[in-house]
């Protein structure tokens, strides 16, 4: 099963990479500043968070005297969340959006979610790079712990792919899924310690936030960027196993339903 996916992905690798490149180019094709816009968005976000929370509101992270701590905490969470929600939303709609293509051309359909995830990943890399520059300038470079990022990103991709393919297939049959996801993501954002640290919420609610599968992942990013420490790998183990299982289930569902899926598009 896995070999056949890898084989067809390999055969269509240039198509997948080409599509990712094209999607990125298409976004900025007719704008004068072109690819610079990819940088301006995240740059504006980092600036706003730093100025508003550190300078204007003087928000401090509990247990830290660093005026920039909250800004770094916020950025690392928001960036990782942005990658998650953007790619998940696009993966959920990818089969519906490419319905005509799926009906009329015979090509590996599994390349479609790969293209949207690859696309979001590219954006994520850019904002991570900018964030890295910001950390360098403010003299808060996390050091060697930054080497854990590829593992965190890989784990996040597995989670997104598993969830995205499952929801993408379900969305073809039950269009409510796409609508529901937009609402669920709103709640999910606030149930994840991104804007607030876990320690400030009442203890009886901490259990809810801790049971959120995204919590350990976001916390890992925050640990790396804010404290310059290696993430707590043990805490990430359940998520790793869960995401892998989800990916297997999602792929199984995709295989089982891909024939019927074409009929519904």
């Amino acid at each position, binding site marked *: 099963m896995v070999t056949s996916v890898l084989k067809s992905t390999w*055969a*269509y690798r*240039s*198509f997948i990479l*080409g*599509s990712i490149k*094209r999607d990125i*180019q*298409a976004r900025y*094709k*007719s704008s004068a500043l072109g690819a610079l816009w990819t940088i301006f968005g995240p740059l504006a976000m980092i600036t706003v968070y730093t100025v508003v929370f550190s300078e204007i509101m003087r928000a401090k992270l509990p247990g830290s005297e660093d005026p920039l701590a909250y800004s770094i905490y916020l950025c690392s969470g928001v960036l990782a969340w942005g990658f998650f929600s953007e790619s998940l939303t696009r993966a959920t709609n990818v089969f519906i959006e490419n319905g*005509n*293509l*799926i*009906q*009329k*051309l*015979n*090509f590996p359909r599994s390349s479609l979610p790969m293209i949207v995830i690859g696309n979001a990943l590219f954006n994520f890399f850019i904002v991570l790079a900018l964030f890295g520059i910001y950390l360098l300038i403010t003299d808060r470079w996390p050091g060697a712990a930054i080497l854990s990022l590829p593992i965190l990103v890989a784990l996040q991709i597995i989670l997104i792919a598993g969830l995205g393919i499952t929801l993408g297939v379900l969305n073809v*049959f*039950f*269009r*409510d899924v796409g609508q529901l996801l937009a609402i669920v993501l709103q709640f999910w954002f606030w149930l994840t310690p991104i804007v607030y640290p876990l320690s400030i919420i009442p203890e009886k609610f901490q259990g809810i936030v801790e049971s959120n599968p995204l919590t350990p992942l976001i916390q890992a990013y925050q640990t790396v960027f804010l404290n310059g420490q290696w993430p707590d790998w043990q805490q990430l183990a359940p998520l790793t196993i869960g995401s892998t299982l989800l990916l297997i289930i999602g792929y199984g569902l995709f295989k089982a339903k*891909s*024939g*019927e899926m*074409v*009929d519904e598009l």
Partner: protein
Amino acid sequence: MGQLTVNSLGKAYKIYPSPGARLREWILPFAGPRHQEKWVLKDISFSVLPGETVALVGANGAGKSTLLKLICGTVKPSLGSMEIQGHIAALLELGMGFHPEFTGRQNVFMAGQLLGLHPSEIAQLMPVIEDFAEIGEAIDQPVRTYSSGMQMRLAFSVATAKRPDLLIIDEALSVGDAYFQHKSFDRIRQFKKLGSTLIIVSHDRTAIQSICDRAILLDKGKMIMEGEPEKVMDYYNALMSERESMVIKQIQLDSGQVQTISGTGEASIESIELLNSEDKVTDVIKVGEKTTIQVKAKINQAIPQLVLGFMIKDRFGQPVYGINTYRQQQTLSDLTPGQTANFQFEFNMNIGAANYSIAFSLSKGDSHLEKNYEWRDYGAVFHVINVGKEDFVGSAWLNAQTEIELEQGQ
């Protein structure tokens, strides 16, 4: 070598009464199915040998497009199996995967890869693609600046850049100007000559008869005939015309109109025939030609009076000429069951070249509103062609006689 064998292939779509029903079926798979199956193709078996060209014909909704999608593998069959040997290319829709913001060249690369070509292969084929599309410098302009014909040219060139073993074409070729149509048809002929197997869906009788070795006729999802293209096309036409005279209340005609037959049935139309000046049954009449309409009506119940009327209508449904036997003072009276009335209307077809239909009515009096035994729309359909008359405009041929006198100026 492209070869295709199709074994009792069937395709059904699942129809659920509501999205909730599907959810229940998914969650409770043991509670039995909650959908109905709508069979769009059933029991299709045929084989296409290497190098053969086969046409698929049939009315809209006969299942031709579904069959093509099954063959090219995008849609999965519900029943049966298929064996395909060789590399398939399908022209189901041209311009798939084109992005308007990118240049023709960039799009060729993307579309080619979507078709399964390797980038190095595309680079190698690029000069041929450019050359065949004949769009010149525009190849390096964004596709959004192209006319639809130029997009079509480029898309066709990419899709057929590499000769496939099995080529599937769904009427995509009717786009483009006459020159390019000719050129693309030549390329397909060339493929055929080089040994490619072709499967074509078309309504164009001339194209089918000139290029195909065999034709397969589909009707309502079933294969009803397979054989020589000419024989199959004749049968297909007969099938279509049989539809027009079948005694069903409402019939969707091939042209999209609905033929309505209504009435109380005391008398009914048995047959309608349109004869030309040589007394041959036809549906093509020349302007001014002597024409005869023969109608046979059967009396089913005793009726005091019977009037037959007919009305010739143009393609917009506007009456061109209508008359009935009451106005011609030839009303039949005191008819008994079992009798047959043979009507014959003779006239010269002094109307303009176009398509027309004739509606018929059997009634008691002047108007069918009083007592309508049978009313039949589209009882006959015919074309008027202009042969040998001066080229005139309009729906009536008035045969103007012209005299000109040229006076010299003072």
